[in-house]
C-alpha cells in the first residue's frame, strides 16, 4: 500500500513538472535597442532573465555577498540581494540560473517592456544621441483608438516617421 502511494506521488510530480514546463514561455531580449542572444523566461507572469549574462549586458554583476551570504545583483556600491526571506527570485532551467527581473531591475535603474515575444530593456545608462546615426530613446505609447501600446521598436525594419504634434 505504501509503495503504491509513493508511485502515485511520483506520477503526480511528473505531471506537475510537465505543466509548469508548458506554462513557461520564452522571450528574446533586446538591450538598449540591440538584439542579444539572451532568452528570458516568463513564468506565472514573472519575467526571469539568465542572471550572469543579463547582468553583464546591463553593466552589473551577480555575485555571492560575503562568505555564504546571499546572492545579489551589484553595480558599483549598490547590491540588491535576491531570495531574501519569503521571496523566490531565482529559477534554474536546464542548469542555467535565472533571476526575476522584477526583483532587481528597478533599483538598478533598468526599465523594460514586453511586446511581441520580445523583452525590450533599457539600461538607463545609455545617453542616446539625437543626431543622424544615433538610436534615440525608445518609447511605448497607447494607440489613440484602441489603447494598445505601440513601441518605436515595433517599426524596426521599416523607414518610420514619428511626428509629434499637439492641436494647439
Amino acid at each position, binding site marked *: 500500500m505504501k509503495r503504491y502511494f509513493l508511485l502515485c506521488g511520483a506520477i503526480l510530480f511528473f505531471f506537475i513538472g510537465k505543466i509548469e514546463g508548458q506554462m513557461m514561455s520564452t522571450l528574446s531580449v533586446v538591450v538598449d*535597442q540591440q538584439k542579444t542572444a539572451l532568452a528570458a523566461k516568463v513564468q506565472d507572469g514573472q519575467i526571469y532573465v539568465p542572471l550572469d549574462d543579463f547582468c553583464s549586458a546591463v553593466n552589473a554583476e551577480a555575485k555571492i555577498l560575503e562568505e555564504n551570504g546571499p546572492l545579489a545583483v551589484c553595480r558599483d556600491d549598490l547590491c540588491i540581494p535576491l531570495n531574501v526571506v519569503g521571496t523566490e527570485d531565482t529559477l534554474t532551467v536546464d542548469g542555467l540560473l535565472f533571476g526575476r527581473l522584477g526583483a532587481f531591475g528597478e533599483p538598478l535603474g533598468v526599465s523594460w517592456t514586453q511586446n511581441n515575444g520580445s523583452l525590450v530593456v533599457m539600461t538607463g545608462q545609455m*545617453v*542616446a*544621441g*539625437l*543626431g*543622424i*546615426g*544615433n*538610436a*534615440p*530613446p525608445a*518609447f511605448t*505609447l*497607447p*494607440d*489613440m*483608438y484602441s489603447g494598445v501600446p*505601440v513601441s*518605436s*521598436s515595433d*517599426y*524596426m*525594419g*521599416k*523607414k*518610420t*516617421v*514619428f*511626428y*509629434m*504634434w*499637439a*492641436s*494647439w
Partner: protein
Amino acid sequence: MAKPWVEKAGATYRALLDQHNFIGKAYNLKFVPVGILLDEDGKLVRAVGSVNIDNDEFQSELTEWVTSGAIPKAWIDADKQSAPKALTAEEKEADARFQLAIVLLENDKKEAAIAELKKAFELDPENWLIRKQLWAIETPEAFYDGNVDYGWQKAQMAREKVALEASKK
C-alpha cells in the same frame, strides 16, 4: 483631445497619445511639432527637431529619403550630434507638477490642475508643452471652439510678458 483633429484630417496613419509627455521628457523637447525619423535599423536619419509636415521642401526631402534611401543633403547639413540634456532641478519639478496636473484633470480637479501648471510654467518658462497646455485648459474657448485662436495666443504672450516684467520689478 487630439481625436477631432485626427478625424478632421482623415488621417490614415496611426495616432499615439503621449498624455504624460514621455517623449518631451526623454528627449528634453520643449515644443512641437517635432519629427523623429528612423531608418530600418532604428537609427535617426535627421537630427530630432522642428519639422513642419506641410512644408513643401520637407515633403520633397522626405520623398527623396523614402524612395532612394539616401539621406537628403539638407538633413546632413543641419545635423547636430546632440544628446538630450539631463533635466535641471527646476525642469524636474516642472515636470512633476505637469504630471500631477494631468492626474488632477483626469479626476475633474481643474482648478488644482491649473494651479500646478502655473507653478510648472514659472519653473520652466521656455517649455511650450507646459505653457500651451496651461492655456488650453484655462481658456478652452480659444482652442476647442472650431479653429485654434492664434490671435488670442499672441495677446496672451504679450500679457504674460507684462506680468513677468512686473514681477521682476
